[in-house]
């Protein structure tokens, strides 16, 4: 019994090594092996065996070989009797100085004409010299929730804004609210630390709009992110609050899909281009809802 087990174990080990061998063998060999394996034909069970082929006789033209018949050039044969000489050029050999000229005129390998492009000047000069610091997540000792409500409703929308481009004014579509816009919130609860009120109820908290992506066709909603929440205490110190609000509008994509499925037999496939024109909903941050961010120390 033990012996059988041992043999089985050995077999298992060899079996496990097979992929290693396959990988270690060079690719060409395996390709050739695959090629030969492909060429191999296996006789079917019930097919009659073919008679052994007769040995081919030597110097016997093959039946299938196609040979082009030789056409004799009679005009050339007539010229053979004449003593004709090949014209040869006896003049001076032209000097090939192009390489020397090229060496003189062309620039060296590394001295190609480098025209350096300059980038557009940064408009927001105030922020151009302030390097955004990498975010470092600290492990907080105390975490308390700060409930907020915005003072006004903020919703996404796309507007066409007139921009002075050279001679003409052009209109460009721009998503609103703008990135960097301040949004005003009010605190709904007292936030305490060690028995002291750090952020009183009704205090002003400000956030900035981080990212806005407008709604699009196919029932796709708009999305908006508010980040960098901060609060100013009595002494004017800025206290940073952790967290962000990401708001998304309603999506019609699922419903469009269902309606497409249901109406395809009746509209013969026309439902898809018709319904996919519909956009999704606008992202809204509204005073009807309560939002939460975190005060961490």
């Amino acid at each position, binding site marked *: 019994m033990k012996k059988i087990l041992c043999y089985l174990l050995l077999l298992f080990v060899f079996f496990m090594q097979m992929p290693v061998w396959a990988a270690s063998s060079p690719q060409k060999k395996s390709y050739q092996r695959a090629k030969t394996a492909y060429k191999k034909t296996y006789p079917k069970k019930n097919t009659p065996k073919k008679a052994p082929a007769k040995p081919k006789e030597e110097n016997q033209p093959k039946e299938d070989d196609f040979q082009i018949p030789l056409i004799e050039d009679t005009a050339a044969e007539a010229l053979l009797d004449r003593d004709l000489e090949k014209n040869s050029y006896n003049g001076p050999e032209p000097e090939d100085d192009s390489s020397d000229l090229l060496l003189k005129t062309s620039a060296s390998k590394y001295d190609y004409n480098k025209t350096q492009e300059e980038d557009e000047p940064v408009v927001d000069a105030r922020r151009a010299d302030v390097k955004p610091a990498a975010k470092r997540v600290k492990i907080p000792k105390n975490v308390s929730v700060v409930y907020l409500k915005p003072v006004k409703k903020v919703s996404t929308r796309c507007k066409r804004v007139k921009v002075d481009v050279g001679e003409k004014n052009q209109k460009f579509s721009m998503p609103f609210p703008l990135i960097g816009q301040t949004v005003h919130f009010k605190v709904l609860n007292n936030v305490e630390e060690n028995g002291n009120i750090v952020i009183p109820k*009704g205090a002003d908290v400000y956030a900035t709009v981080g990212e806005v992506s407008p709604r699009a066709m196919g029932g796709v909603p708009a999305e908006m992110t508010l980040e960098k929440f901060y609060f100013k205490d009595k002494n004017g110190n800025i206290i940073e609050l952790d967290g962000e609000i990401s708001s998304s509008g309603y999506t019609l*994509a699922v419903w469009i899909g269902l309606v497409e499925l249901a109406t395809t037999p009746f509209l013969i496939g026309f439902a898809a281009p018709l319904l996919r024109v519909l956009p999704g909903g606008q992202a809204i941050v509204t005073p009807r809802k309560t939002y939460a961010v975190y005060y961490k120390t």
Partner: protein
Amino acid sequence: MYLRFFIIIALFLSVGLISFGADVPLACDVDVMQKKLLETGFRLLNSNDIQKHVFFYYDISDKIQVQQYFYTKKIVFYQGAMKFIENDDEFAALIARELAYSMDMRFGIFRRTSMSYNPRKYELKADRRAVDYLVNAGYNPVGLITVYNKLLAEPSAFGESFFVKHKGSERIMSIYDYIYQKYPYFIAHNEYLRTPVYQNFLKTSKKERKKSRLLQQTRLELLRKYNSDVEKSKNEYSISDFSMYNMYNQDYDYGDYESYGLEELENFVNLLEEENP
């Protein structure tokens, strides 16, 4: 006795035979790259406080691709893409972009359906989100522009890009515009300005960059207006006046921008500044 003897032989063989497999990719390069990938991936996750599990895997196949897989929650970095990468910023940029896309995928079934219906929008969103991730993790987001200038294709409008994908140049301009708006420091102090790849981007995007600058000027004018409104409201609603706060359904008054040209805006802002010095 036999059993022990054979186990020893089997172990010996298993070790020995693996060492014969010279072409098996156990080379230290792959190990180093896998470690590098893990290090960069977790740095991005931790610095952006992403509380999701993501599996990072370095694949040795020659695909020029970095891809996220939703069902296995993994991000696979294929070795073929390494030919195009020159520094850490570019390496992190590709991972950050896939991370941003996978975060959208994991938002819920409604979001996933939306993404399948209009992938063009979420493509740009992931690119822009990747810029945020890179900045938070301490990388230079301009790396995303340079690596995409090498990697992205420019399919024709009626080819694969129609309704499905953006052109490479459009995506790069969208990233540039976002950096220009939100992190202008990296444009003003650009480490990549003299590199051939970035120079090529500058040459091929003159008009778009000019447009981007003009739009940013307009945005700044408008921002000054809105943010000054909020500054005013600071005085209106003090802490004691909390009872007065119940401003339901009040929209921001965006005004009629279409009537504003740049000159009118400038006059308007100057007036505001004179009124509120």
